[in-house]
């Protein structure tokens, strides 16, 4: 809208625009119950199905009463369409082309480190399972694919961890000559314990097979077993490799790397969804974002259309159900009864979870006590022994299969919306599976620590590696056509949670469990963490030991913790401030739109007068 000729007019309009809010408020009061204009064919009633307390809906009612007369409000900046490629090719000049090319080159490499760019190139050329993923995408769509992409990422992370542990632990064993091993510490009784600890590899075929699952017998002589690793220094004459220190550092680095990679993934995903408030765009997203353009096959598309129709119809039905329920909730008897039912169901669910945990605990207790009494030597049947040893796992599997079905049945009585039903069921099922893991870890802990028949050479710690992945499989992606990003975030949260749950025993073992003197890389030391102290001593630098003692003193560590807490507090406050800014800007859009309409009306009036 060019050419507002007089400055006076401009000022006048700007003034009107500035006072617009006040004006509209007055009009609202004036037209309290007045007639509002309506376009043909659409009911002007306010959306009565809406159970949500939306602030906008009340404002909308007021705005409808004060609406511009024309159907097509001419916007001052109308929609400008991008010209087609052929047109762009014809119209663009050489210099503009060069500029564009430079801009593209710069934007590609901005924001990434030089090493990351070469990694990205590699990833573009070597895409694991690219064709399989593309074919699945054509059949099932983007929702399912995101789960597989997460699994592929997980595989990549495991590969990285494998490379690190293999490179620092297994390679030295292969490279350094075994004759060159020597103890860094003078302790002769350690040699005695090591000599005493012999692994009995049985001749029986069945026992050998069972050994593979239990990790005993011949498995103890492989690199998979903790005790295989030597507790000595390695040297090739000039270079000394402190193996126990390397082992401890590999554990710590693997833990830290996992945390770093998972955090980076979560932050990337979080940044994408930071402004996405799903409640506000629910139905629009359902219509405009649910058709997956990458689907290729006829049958799949038909299924998808049917699913979409079913989802839309059930969402509308849900909304009517919610309105109906909310109306009923106004009356006390229905409301009180519903709350009572909900409390009962929640208590029932908690009782089930508690019962499940107790059952697992009892099973593992029974299993460990029974197997210490009835060992192979006393002549019990090997298969029976195997079954009892696996009793805790069997209990967990049965409970994980049966209890979710029970939860599914009882949740119907609670009368929640479909959305909340899915969330609540998922939370309850995940709690069940995580509780099983937690109880199992607790029982292992009590079994190992409170073992009274320890001799001076100590007992062996058992690692528990595969718990993380099984907890991830606990989440089946729910059947919604447009919730892919939400599911991914949920999987990642479960992964992180389980990671911390399973890293806790490892860290505990490093710091508090006295190491076995019979085997393993820490056999020389009383506790595994003492390796670090010895390693520091080995470094013959002057101020190094002093610096180390200062850095690990309580003063420094507690100050660091306080600084971290302050940063955390600051970030959370920042987030709240941003949320407020977003809300303010959103309201501003509405006001600006009205201002423009009003300004245009004024201009029309002015032209008419002229």
């Amino acid at each position, binding site marked *: 809208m060019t050419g507002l000729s007089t400055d006076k007019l401009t000022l006048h309009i700007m003034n009107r625009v500035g006072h617009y809010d006040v004006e509209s408020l007055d009009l609202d009061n004036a037209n309290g119950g007045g007639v509002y204009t309506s*376009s043909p064919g*659409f*009911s002007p009633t306010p*959306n009565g*199905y809406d159970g949500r307390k939306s602030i906008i*809906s009340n404002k909308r009612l007021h705005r*409808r009463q004060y*609406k511009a007369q024309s*159907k097509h*409000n001419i*916007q001052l900046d*109308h*929609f400008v*369409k991008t010209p*087609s*490629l*052929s047109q762009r*090719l014809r119209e*663009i000049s050489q210099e503009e*082309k060069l500029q*564009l*090319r430079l801009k*593209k080159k710069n934007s590609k490499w901005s924001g990434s480190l030089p090493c990351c760019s070469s990694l990205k190139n590699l990833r573009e050329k070597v895409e694991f399972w690219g064709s399989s993923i593309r074919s699945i995408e054509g059949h099932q769509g*983007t929702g399912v694919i*995101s789960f597989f992409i997460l699994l592929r990422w997980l595989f990549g992370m495991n590969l990285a961890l494998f490379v690190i542990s293999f490179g620092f632990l297994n390679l030295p064993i292969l490279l350094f000559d075994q004759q060159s091993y020597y103890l860094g510490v003078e302790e002769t009784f350690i040699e005695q314990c090591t000599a005493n600890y012999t692994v009995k590899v049985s001749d029986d075929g069945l026992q050998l097979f069972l050994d593979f699952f239990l990790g005993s017998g011949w498995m103890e002589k492989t690199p998979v077993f903790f005790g295989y690793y030597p507790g000595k220094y390695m040297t090739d004459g000039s270079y000394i490799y402190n193996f126990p220190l390397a082992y401890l550092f590999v554990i710590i680095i693997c833990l830290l790397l996992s945390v770093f990679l998972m955090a980076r993934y979560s932050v990337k995903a979080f940044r*994408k*969804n930071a*402004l*996405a*408030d799903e409640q506000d*765009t629910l*139905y*629009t*997203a359902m*219509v*405009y*974002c*649910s*058709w*997956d*353009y*990458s689907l*290729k*096959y*006829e049958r799949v*598309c038909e299924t998808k*259309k049917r699913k*979409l*129709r079913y989802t*839309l*119809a059930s*969402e*509308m039905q849900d*909304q*009517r159900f919610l309105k109906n329920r909310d109306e009923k909730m106004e009356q006390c008897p229905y409301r009180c009864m519903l709350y009572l039912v909900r409390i009962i169901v929640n208590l029932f669910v908690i009782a089930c979870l508690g019962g499940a945990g107790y059952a697992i605990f009892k099973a593992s207790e029974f299993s460990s006590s029974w197997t210490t009494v009835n060992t192979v030597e006393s002549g019990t049947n090997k298969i029976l022994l195997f079954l009892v040893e696996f009793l805790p796992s069997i209990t967990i599997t049965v409970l994980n299969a049966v209890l979710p079905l029970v939860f599914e049945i009882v949740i119907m009585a609670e009368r929640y919306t479909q959305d909340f039903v899915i969330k609540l069921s998922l939370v309850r099922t995940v709690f069940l599976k995580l509780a099983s893991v937690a109880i199992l870890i607790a029982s292992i802990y009590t079994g190992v620590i409170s073992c009274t028949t320890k001799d001076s050479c100590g007992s062996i710690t058992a690692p528990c590696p595969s718990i993380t992945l099984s907890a991830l499989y606990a989440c089946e992606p729910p059947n919604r056509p*447009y919730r892919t*990003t939400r599911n991914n975030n949920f999987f990642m949260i479960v992964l992180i949670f389980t990671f911390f749950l399973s890293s806790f025993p490892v860290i505990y073992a490093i710091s508090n469990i006295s190491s076995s003197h019979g085997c393993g890389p820490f056999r020389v030391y009383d506790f595994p963490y003492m390796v670090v102290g010895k390693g520091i001593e080995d470094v013959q630098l002057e101020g190094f030991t002093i610096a180390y003692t200062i850095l690990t003193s309580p003063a420094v560590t507690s100050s660091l913790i306080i600084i971290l807490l302050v940063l955390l507090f600051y970030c959370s406050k920042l987030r709240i401030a941003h949320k407020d800014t977003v809300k303010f800007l959103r309201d501003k*859009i*509405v006001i600006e*739109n009205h201002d423009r309409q009003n300004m245009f009306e004024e201009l029309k009036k002015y032209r008419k007068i002229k």
Partner: protein
Amino acid sequence: MGGSQSAFTEQELDDYQTLTYLTKKEILHVYKRFFTLAPQAVNQDKNTKLGISDIQKLPELKVNPFRERICKVFSSSGDGDMTFEDFLDMMSVFSDQAPKNVKVEYAFRIYDFDEDDYISAGDLKEVIDKLTGDQKLSEEDMQQLIDNIFMEADLDDDELLSFAEFEHVISKAPDFINSFRIRL
């Protein structure tokens, strides 16, 4: 099909790469797919215009409920017939590298059935009908859904979605980018 490399000069490929969001390798791949739609015609003249029925032979478009609108929007003549450059433009907008605002603009044009630069309730109804397939939604459900969408997106209450309103509401939906994508 090693011949696709020789169909374009270095300069042409460069220009295409600068003005679209595809790499040279991807552009050649798109040409390969375009070729398979009508080998005789394209072999004779690579700038030939393929009719809408030929374009819709592409498997990715054949099952898409909005295929007619897509062809109309990207066709430079406006009637659905596309040259290779139109086809390339389409693949560029649907690629991974295209930024969100470009995708939103073209999505708006595709979903605006009556081409008046606004999405009216009629446009919405057509979209929903195409999405649900043979079995349509009931009258009551349809009206309720349209009302809900206008309540979410229509900020100035004119029963029309302008591009600004559409962009505003779609940019907030996290799954838009993932669904508005065709990979050849």
